[in-house]
């Protein structure tokens, strides 16, 4: 029996990454189907708690995708998002989890190919890490 596919939660800013994901679809670019996209009004809306709860509930990796540096619709939401991602990475290190399970990506609304590439590469890196420690021994998310 093959190893279960990793579950990836992607918080995607509606002004860029969400549109880029849409673009990837309309350009018929393939990216892993296990990437679950949650549309947010800005990557700066994503809180530390949102990322942690996703992991706690069984996500193997969490991607926060915001606008290109300097291009945030709300000026600095993507910078805030990056600092929160770094905070979660610090917390994960403190408890012995792999900090690479959480990552930040930047892209513009027209970069469907970037979304597809980032989603594929992140999924692959999480596959290398293995399942969320809470899912090991079970194939289902909590």
């Amino acid at each position: 029996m093959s190893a279960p596919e990793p579950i990836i939660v992607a918080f995607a800013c509606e002004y860029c990454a969400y549109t880029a994901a849409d673009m990837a679809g309309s350009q018929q670019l393939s990216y892993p189907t296990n990437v679950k996209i949650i549309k947010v009004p800005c990557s700066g809306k994503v809180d530390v708690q949102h990322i942690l709860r996703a992991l706690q509930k069984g996500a193997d990796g969490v991607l926060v995708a915001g606008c290109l540096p300097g291009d945030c619709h709300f000026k600095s939401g993507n910078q805030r998002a990056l600092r929160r991602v770094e905070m979660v990475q610090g917390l994960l290190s403190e408890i012995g989890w792999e900090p690479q399970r959480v990552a930040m990506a930047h892209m513009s609304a027209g970069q469907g190919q970037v979304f597809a590439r980032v989603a594929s590469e992140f999924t692959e890196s999480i596959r290398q890490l293995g399942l969320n420690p809470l899912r090991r021994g079970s194939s289902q998310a909590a």
Partner: protein
Amino acid sequence: MITAERKPIQEILEYLTPFSRVLLLGCNECVTVCNAGGRKEVGILASTLTMARRKEGLEIEVEELTLERQCDPEFVEELARIIDRYEAVLSMACGCGVQTVAERFPTVPVLPMVNTEFMGASERQGVWAERCAGCGDCVLAYTGGICPVARCSKRIFNGPCGGSSKGKCEINPEMDCAWQLIWDRLKALGQSELYSHIMPAKDWRSARDGGPRRIVRRDLQP
């Protein structure tokens, strides 16, 4: 406000070792404002502790609750109907809150989740600085509203020491010399004559040196 910072996770996990069902208790006052122990921080810590314990194959049930104020028996009383469900209370309040809860429930372990730091003000988002040392005998009227007790590293009362250089303190070149600030502000207020007002040696008995302090207001008592 009273400021605080969360303790290292490993220290908290050590406290948690004997327990499997705990109440993680936030406070809606100072620690909420300084983002150390309000509802959001309770949620973050609850997830973190749960993930840490489950990774080790250990079960832990962390219930979350945030009281309006943990340093007030009136609000702590809310716990009376649920406290029996838990083996321990993990308090994210300052030391005052931890002790108020512990005093009310003498048979339940109440453990601190934050290190209480100082009485401070917000300089800008995400930065807090000490502003009051609670000395019990305020001198701000003579010092242009800048406290030599809380903001001078040596707590001196009549002008700067020899370590004041270009407006900064010898303790830390990024720290303003309180007496430079006081002089600048007295000049701006047109009160520079106050600088030559010699303050007598301070009676520190009104501060912590007189032992633990209490305030008793007969007018407020039933």
